[in-house]
C-alpha cells in the first residue's frame, strides 16, 4: 500500500499550484480552473484518509464535493460569460469597479 504521505504530498502540491494560479493569473477562466485544482487537492485528501481509516464517509464527501464543484463551475462560467458580454474582457486586472 502506498504510504499516505505521498497522497498528502500530492494534494499539497496541487493545492499550492491552484492557490498560486488563483492569485497570479489574469484570465478568469484560468482562475476557475485553478480553483478546481484546489478542490481536487481537497478531494484527494478526503479519499486518502477515508481509505486509510476504513471509514466510508470521506468517499461520500468526495462525491458530494465533485457535484458541488460541477455546479460551481457552471455558475462561475456563467459569470465569466456575462463579464465578457458586458466588458469585452475576462482579464481580472481590468475588472476593478468595486473600489474607492
Amino acid at each position, binding site marked *: 500500500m502506498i504510504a499516505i504521505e505521498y497522497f498528502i504530498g500530492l494534494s499539497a502540491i496541487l493545492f499550492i499550484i491552484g492557490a498560486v494560479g488563483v492569485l497570479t493569473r489574469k484570465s478568469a477562466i484560468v482562475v476557475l480552473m485553478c480553483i478546481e485544482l484546489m478542490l481536487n487537492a481537497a478531494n484527494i485528501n478526503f479519499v486518502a484518509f477515508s481509505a486509510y481509516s476504513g471509514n466510508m464517509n470521506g468517499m461520500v464527501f468526495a462525491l458530494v464535493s465533485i457535484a458541488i464543484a460541477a455546479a460551481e463551475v457552471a455558475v462561475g462560467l456563467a459569470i465569466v460569460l456575462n463579464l465578457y458580454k458586458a466588458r469585452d474582457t475576462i482579464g*481580472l486586472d481590468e*475588472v476593478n*469597479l468595486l*473600489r474607492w
Partner: protein
Amino acid sequence: MMYWSELAWLIPIIPLISFVVVGFLGNKAFKRIENGGYFAILMAAVACFLSLMVAFEILTGGYPGGTFIQSMNWMTVPGFTFNMGIYIDTLTALMLIVVSFISTLVVIYSVGYMHEEGEKKRRYYAEISLFICAMLGLVLSSNFLQMFIFWEIVGLCSYLLIGFWNTKPSAASAAKKAFLVTRIGDIMFMLGLFIFFVGFQGNLDFSYIFNNVDAFLGGNDLLTLGTFFIFGGAIGKSAQFPLHDWLPDAMEGPTTVSALIHAATMVKAGVYLVARTYPVMVETPNTMLIIAIIGGITALMAATMALNNPNIKRVLAYSTISQLGYMFLALGTGGYLFFHTQETNAGFMSGMFHLMNHAFFKALLFLSAGAVIHAVHTEDMRLMGGLSKKLKITSLVMLIGCISIAGIPPLSGFWSKDEILAVVFETGAENPLFYVLYIMGILTAFMTAFYMFRLWYMTFAGEPRDHHVYDHAHESPKVMWVPLAILAALAFGSGFALFFGFSEAIQPTMFHPHAETWTQILEIVFTDVLTYLSIIAAVLGIFLAYLMYRKRSINPDVFVATPARRKIYGLLLARYGFTAAYDWIGLKVVYGVAKAVDWFDRKVIDGIVNGFAIVTIKVGNIVRRGQTGFVQSYAALVVAGVSIIVILLFLFGGVI
C-alpha cells in the same frame, strides 16, 4: 351660617367667564352690544359686588377670626405640597375693593372711550376681563406660588393691552419693553421664592410662613436676601428705580389701560406684595431700609421728570411712579421703625392708605386725561389750553384729582401723604438717613403740586393755543363722565376712611393696633408742625404753577434761557438717560454677551462636533485606498491571513 367669604373663589372666576365668552365666541354674537363690552361690564360688576360684600364682611369683623383661608391641594410631590387657595385678611379686602371697583368703572368708561375701535374692541374687552380675573386672583392668592402665577398673567395682560394698537411700532416696542423690564423683576421674585421655598421647607402658604418666620432655615442673611429678592419683584412690577423706565412708555396703550393697569391696580401689585410679605419683611431691617431708600429716590426722581414733560399721559405716568415711591417709602420706613422700636407705627397703614387713595385719584386723573384726549385727539398739552369752557365736567373732576394728589386738606391725598411724611420724620430719630428721605418727600410733595397744576392749567386754563384742536373739542358722553364723577367723589372723600377705623382695620396683627377716635386723629394731624410744612410745600407748588402757567408772571422759558438750564431741561426730558442706558445695556452688554456666546457656540461647541466629522473623513480618505477592487488582491489577503493563523496555531496553539 353662610359667609360671603365662602363665595370668594367665584370672584376671579367671573371675569374669567367674561374673558372666555367675549374672547372666543366670535364677533357676530356681540356685534350689537359693543363687541362684548356690556357683557364685560356685567361680569365685572358681579365680581365687584361679590368683592365688596366679602371686603365688607372681613373689614367689619363679620368673619370669625378675621382671616378667611380656604385651600386645596394642587400638586403633591414627595416632600412638599403646593396648594391653591384663597387668603382674605383686611389687606386683601382693601385690595379687593380698590381693584374690583376701579375695574368696573374703567370697563364702563371704556364703552365710551373705545367706541370707535370697531371689531378690535372684542379683543380689548376680552383682555381686560382676563386682567381683572388675574388681578383679583393675585390679591386673593393663598400662597406665593399661586401669587406668582397670577403675577405673570397680569404681566401678560399688561403686555397685550399696551400693545393694543399693535400696528403702531411705538406701541409694539413699548409693550415689549414693559414685558422685558418687568421680567427682570419677575426673575428676582422667583429667586426670592426659591429662597423662601428652601428656608420654609417647601411650604409657601401665607398662613404657614407668617406664623413661622422663626422657623426659617439658613439664618438671617439668607432671609434678608430672600426678602430683598421679593422686593426685587416689586421693583419691576411697580416701576421703581432703576426699573422704572417702562412705565412712561406703557402710556402707548389706550388711556383706560393706563388708568386701570398702569395706575390703579397692576403697578400696585408690587406694593401689595411687599405689604403681603410684611410679617417676614419686618424681620429684615436691611431690606426695609433699601425699600425706603429706593422708594424715596423713585418718588423724587420721577417727580422731577414730570416737571417739564409736554405729554399729558407721560406726566401722569411719572406721577404714578413717584406716588408708588411714596408707598414703598412708607412701607420700608414703617417696617424699619417697627424692627427697632417694636411699637405700633403708621408706616404700613399710611402706605396702604396712600395706595387706596392714589388708586382713586390717579384713576380719576387718567380717565379725565382720557376724556381730554378723546375730545381733542392729541396728547400734547402744548396744543391744548382753555378747554375748561368746552369740557366743564372733565375740568372740574380733574381739578378735584389734582388738589387731591397735591395734598391739600381735606381731600384724600393729603391724609395719606401726611401720614407717610410723619412716619418718615419720626424714624429719623432712629436713623438720620430718614431725615434726608423726609426732605426728599417734602420736595416731592412740592413738585407733585407743581406739575399737577401745570398740567391742569396748560390743559384747561387760559386761551386756546391751537384753535383747530379747540374747535373740535366736545364734552365726553355720559357713559364716560359718570364714572369720572364717582371717582371724583372717592378722590375727594376716600381720605375720610381714616376716621372710620381704617387704621385699626388695616394694621398687621403684630402691630397690636389701638383705636383712636376721629377727634384724636384730627388733633394729632393738625397739632404737628410737619403737617403745615407739607401743606405749605403743596401750596407753594400750586402757586408757582399758577404764576407760570396761569398768570404768566414768570415765563416758563426761563428754564431754557441758558445752556446749562437747557441741559438740565433736556436731561429731564431724556429721563436722566435711563432710556438710553437701557438701550445701551441691551445693545452693547446683552448683545455683546450674546455675540460672545454665539462665538463660543459656533467655534467651540460646533467645532468639537465638526472636528469629529472632519477627522473621520480624513482618516477614511486614507484608509479607503486599501480597497483596490482587484479580486486577486483580496484573495491574496485571505490566503495570507489564513497562513498567518495556521502558523500562529503551529507556534502557540499547541496543535502539534
